[in-house]
């Protein structure tokens, strides 16, 4: 009768082979990282772009197909409500456009033009794809994008370009965990906004300072400058500080278009 049993010798090498293999692979990867970083990144992005395009196309088709299975009456009610909300929003928008134009004309008269240029960009990957909380956009060095350029959605600044390649760039979001930015809350109160991920921030202020829900948080820059809106305020009786929780007024994981602000 044949017996089949594990060999008892070479127990030490049984554990060391994975470690040795890992070290060899990491050394080879490190070689490419340090000596040919752009070559690897450019090649990977060239391969990734068609896959991302197909994915966006499929997601678009699925999103349009899904409503066929939902309740038609609910759809009709939602449609009417959205039309009504849209009419109000368009009225507010035309008033805002009037004030914006007036503001720009006044700045020009006083010689205070900010000289910024906005370049529209498409988001290739959303922040929830990795813990780095980064956006990959379809503009790069060939489009004049540089490290440090700001990324905005409308009037809200959401991040900064950190790495650029020929035709792609990576932007890190200001709301990424650990990111700290100087902001102005409500009536000119300066504070450090600490990112918490997913478009959320927290700032610490003395309890005596009055802050309200929905107060606007701004960056200390000419344009754009909106940073977020106050969502909640946490304070305790014993602590002398209050924690202001604020966030961007839109879903970070659904943005498809951004603008790069050239300095």
């Amino acid at each position: 009768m044949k017996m089949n049993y594990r060999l008892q010798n070479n127990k030490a090498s049984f554990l060391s082979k994975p470690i040795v293999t890992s070290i060899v692979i990491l050394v080879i990867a490190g070689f490419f990282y340090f000596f040919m970083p752009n070559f690897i990144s450019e090649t990977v992005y060239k391969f990734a772009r068609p896959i991302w395009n197909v994915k966006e196309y499929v997601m678009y088709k699925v999103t349009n197909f899904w409503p066929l299975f939902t309740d038609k009456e609910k759809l009709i009610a939602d449609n009417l409500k959205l039309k009504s909300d849209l009419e109000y929003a368009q009225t507010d928008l035309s008033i805002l456009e009037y004030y914006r134009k007036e503001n720009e004309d006044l700045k020009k008269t006083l010689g205070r033009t900010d000289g910024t240029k906005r370049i529209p960009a498409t988001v290739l990957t959303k922040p929830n794809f990795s813990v780095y909380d980064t956006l990959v956009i379809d503009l790069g060095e060939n489009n004049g994008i540089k490290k440090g350029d700001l990324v905005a959605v409308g009037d809200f600044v959401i991040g900064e370009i950190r790495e650029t390649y020929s035709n792609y760039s990576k932007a890190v979001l200001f709301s990424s965990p650990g990111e700290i930015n100087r902001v102005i809350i409500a009536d000119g109160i300066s504070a450090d906004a600490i990112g918490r991920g997913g478009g959320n921030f927290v700032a610490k202020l003395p309890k005596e300072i009055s802050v309200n829900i929905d107060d606007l948080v701004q960056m200390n820059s000419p344009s754009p400058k909106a940073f977020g809106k106050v969502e909640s305020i946490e304070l305790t009786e014993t602590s002398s500080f209050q924690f202001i929780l604020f966030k961007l007024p839109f879903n970070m994981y659904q943005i498809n278009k951004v603008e790069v602000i050239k300095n």
Partner: protein
Amino acid sequence: MSKKRAVADILILLSVFIFPWWVTFIVATICLFIFKNFYEIFVFGILIDILYGIPIRRLPIPVFYTLLATIEYIVVAPLYLKLKFN
């Protein structure tokens, strides 16, 4: 390389681009238990770092997922052999 492993590699490679990172790593971890010496997990970790990573604090290159793949491989590879023999 068996056909099953090749198909698994292609599917996990596509998931790096299509799905969030945790989907890729869950499937890759399962493959560590199924296939012997599943070195491909290093490739997937490095790819995610290249695609989405930025230098963090004092580290000059993004290494989070590369390190995660390394730790998973070192921990799971010996377990694979033990499970197969037992």
